[in-house]
């Protein structure tokens, strides 16, 4: 998909969702109250995260050259690549779509899809939220689930790359 097509798709997508809101507002306006309450909560959460992501994007663009990235997460990346993808995913915070612009940028710089997929999968493991998970499900459950997910993320990365880059 070319850059202009990407821009238009985004706008069409946004217009389609706004249209659904308008339809609801006309036919069942009361439904919008809980939706807007949730929307405000989400915006409060995502705006600071988007700002953090923007700063990180600047830092990545400033400090990390495409050559370095290609070495760590490119074609010749080995264990270091996996480690960076796993730790990066675990340490990343916020909603998943806030990270897409940065990952899109990295993808364009030659970062392998396996590492992007592994990064995204490991976003499920959140150290800050572990106390809450332990509270609800226990320490052993939390430990086992975390380890299983980290291991599975590597397999997912390999499979995603294999299929997403396969020639049609």
């Amino acid at each position, binding site marked *: 998909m070319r850059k202009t097509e990407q821009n238009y798709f985004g706008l069409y997508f*946004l217009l*389609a969702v706004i249209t659904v809101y308008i339809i609801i507002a006309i036919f069942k306006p009361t439904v919008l109250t809980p939706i807007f309450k949730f929307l405000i909560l*989400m915006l409060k959460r995502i705006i600071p995260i988007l700002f953090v992501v923007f700063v990180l*994007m600047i830092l990545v663009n400033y400090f990390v050259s495409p050559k370095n990235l290609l070495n760590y997460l490119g074609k010749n990346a080995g264990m270091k690549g996996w480690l960076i993808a796993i730790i990066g995913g675990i340490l990343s915070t916020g909603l998943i779509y806030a990270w*897409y*612009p940065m990952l899109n940028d990295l993808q364009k710089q030659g970062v392998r899809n396996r590492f992007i997929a592994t990064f*995204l999968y490991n976003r499920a493991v959140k150290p800050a939220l572990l106390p809450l998970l332990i509270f609800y499900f226990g320490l052993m459950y939390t430990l086992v*689930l975390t380890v299983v*997910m980290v291991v599975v993320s590597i*397999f997912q990365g390999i499979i995603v790359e294999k299929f997403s880059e396969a020639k049609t």
Partner: protein
Amino acid sequence: MELKQAITKSAKAMYRSLPVIAAVILLVSLVNGVLPKTVYSALFFKNMLLDSFIGSLIGSILAGNPITSYIIGGELLKQGISLVAVTAFLVAWVTVGVVQLPAEAVLLGKRFAITRNITAFLFTIIVAIITVSILSIL
């Protein structure tokens, strides 16, 4: 790369992504606002595979802060829903994103997004079964 260049490049990338991000936020709010939390418990059965599949399916459709999924998951457990179903629900909540699939497809590639989400969905069931199996041995 100079700092000014880095800022301009990042700003352009962020600007290109904003319509998609805004659309996804609106869509997630719509789904979460319309679907009451009590609906979830009514959807589960007492079958390990079927429940993990349903748990994964619901977790895939919904998105948002994992805290919400922990709270719902904890409540589902209290209501007698199996651990394997709840695990699948928790894992799918954060690893599969049906709602944000269009955004992912636009920014990371259609093929990448579809493959990643399908495999994440399948792995969710596998992760749930492995986790619960290990716990039953320990």
